[in-house]
């Protein structure tokens, strides 16, 4: 197996380790639109870092943190449903990112790589920063797990029992922003949310507790990324669409199977 492919498998497995629990949390807290907005904002972050010559991860993280603070603190505006606001902000950021990208583009950057990721371009440096980011994300999730689940169930109950709800909530958004900033290079901006939540959606079918769902999502994530990578390698297509298609196909199969079992 070539080094490209070894690196690609390593990167996608690392991705799945944090994506499992993060994706579960995104579903439970109904943050899918928020995740979309963050990852679309990442394109703007990347374009800006190209323009001003700093590391793309810094640019993405900068934009994501601003978004996390802005959306985290403005979540109770009565005028517009948060879904509507995100549905405006998300394509707005994507469009702005595209415009900046066209304005500042250099010859060696290909747009498709940014939109769908370029997992075969992963090098050792990327793997190291991904591993470090992973450690930060997972240690946060493990340390705050009980608080996070409590917040998903009832913020009032969590507050009465003495959890610092506001802090944990905003820290979760930071962690999500960090993870997206670190992985946008390998998975792209367009399919990021789908890649995060698909394993957790599949795992939901086989889980009675939140812990089981999160752990199972890691396993499912590793399996579908490996299948997706093999497909992408054999047919020479981008990895992220291949992984997403694999996940969606499995979900459809599972639903059809459930219908059949009900009918019998």
């Amino acid at each position: 197996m070539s080094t490209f492919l070894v690196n690609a498998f390593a990167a996608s497995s690392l991705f799945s380790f944090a994506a499992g629990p993060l994706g579960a949390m995104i579903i439970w807290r109904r943050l899918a639109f928020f995740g979309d907005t963050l990852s679309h904002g990442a394109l703007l972050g990347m374009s800006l870092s190209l323009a001003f010559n700093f590391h793309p991860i810094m640019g993405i993280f900068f934009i994501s943190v601003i978004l996390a603070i802005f959306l985290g603190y403005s979540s109770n505006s009565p005028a517009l449903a948060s879904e509507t606001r995100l549905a405006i902000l998300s394509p707005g950021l994507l469009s702005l990112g595209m415009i900046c990208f066209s304005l500042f583009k250099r010859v060696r950057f290909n747009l498709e790589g940014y939109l769908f990721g370029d997992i075969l371009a992963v090098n050792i440096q990327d793997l190291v920063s991904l591993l470090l980011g992973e450690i930060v994300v997972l240690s946060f999730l493990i340390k705050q797990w009980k608080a996070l689940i409590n917040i998903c169930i009832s913020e009032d109950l969590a507050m009465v029992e003495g959890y610092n709800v506001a802090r944990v909530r905003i820290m979760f958004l930071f962690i999500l922003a960090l993870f997206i900033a670190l992985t946008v290079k390998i998975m792209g901006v367009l399919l990021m949310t789908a890649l995060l939540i698909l394993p957790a959606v599949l795992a939901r079918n086989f889980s009675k507790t939140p812990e089981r769902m999160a752990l199972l999502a890691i396993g499912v994530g590793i399996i579908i990324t490996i299948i997706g990578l093999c497909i992408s390698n054999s047919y020479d297509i981008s990895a992220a669409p291949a992984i997403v298609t694999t996940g969606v196909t499995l979900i459809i199969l599972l639903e059809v199977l459930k219908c059949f079992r009900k009918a019998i």
Partner: protein
Amino acid sequence: MILSLDKVFYQKNNKIILEDVSLTISSQELVTIIGPNGAGKTTLLKIVLGLITPTGGNIVKSTSLKVGYMPQKLHVDPSLPITVKRFLELSRYQDTFHQIVSAVNINHLLENSIHILSGGELQRILLARALLSKPDLLVLDEPLQGVDINGQMSLYKLISEVRQILGCAVLLVSHDLHFVHAASDKVICLNHHICCAGKPEEVQNHPNYQLLFTGYRPDVLAPYAHHHDHHHDVNPKREK
């Protein structure tokens, strides 16, 4: 006295929700707040719980006061799989887990998913969760909601029992204007301001009581009649 509110005001979006509300809760006291929907009962509870800050007035709590809270309802997103046991384990306090589970009689529900419980079962689970912290003050927001009349009786009995075992004060909210917990030491009728307050026994011997409420168990449920010391205008603005 474990908690007192002094002339508490709360205003949101230019609407007065609570006005000049003063009350005290002593240890082991059972205080019932009744009032119509939208009277500000839940807001008052949230101020007591420290979940929201009043726009005016003072709250005095004893520093070591431990509060258990049973919310009006619990909506867990169906995407979050969770069993009753795991839900109770999420509490910070676990040392009385087994005693409370048997006291509230939910042993048989522990392995069930929280999504398939009946109204009465869910209320018991929420009560158990509130009790895990061994509270000095138990705050119950409409504990009878979604529970049938038999379930209501047994839930009220259960509340009396745990109150005796734990020796805690209880602050209970109900939108039912006709029945309050018979053991209430104090009943407060709230409609943005405190309309009237008193003991439920004061009305228990009222001639209409036997006539209206025979068939119900007066040891668990008691009627509460309102002593109005002022009149309300038809216009929602109050006269001073």
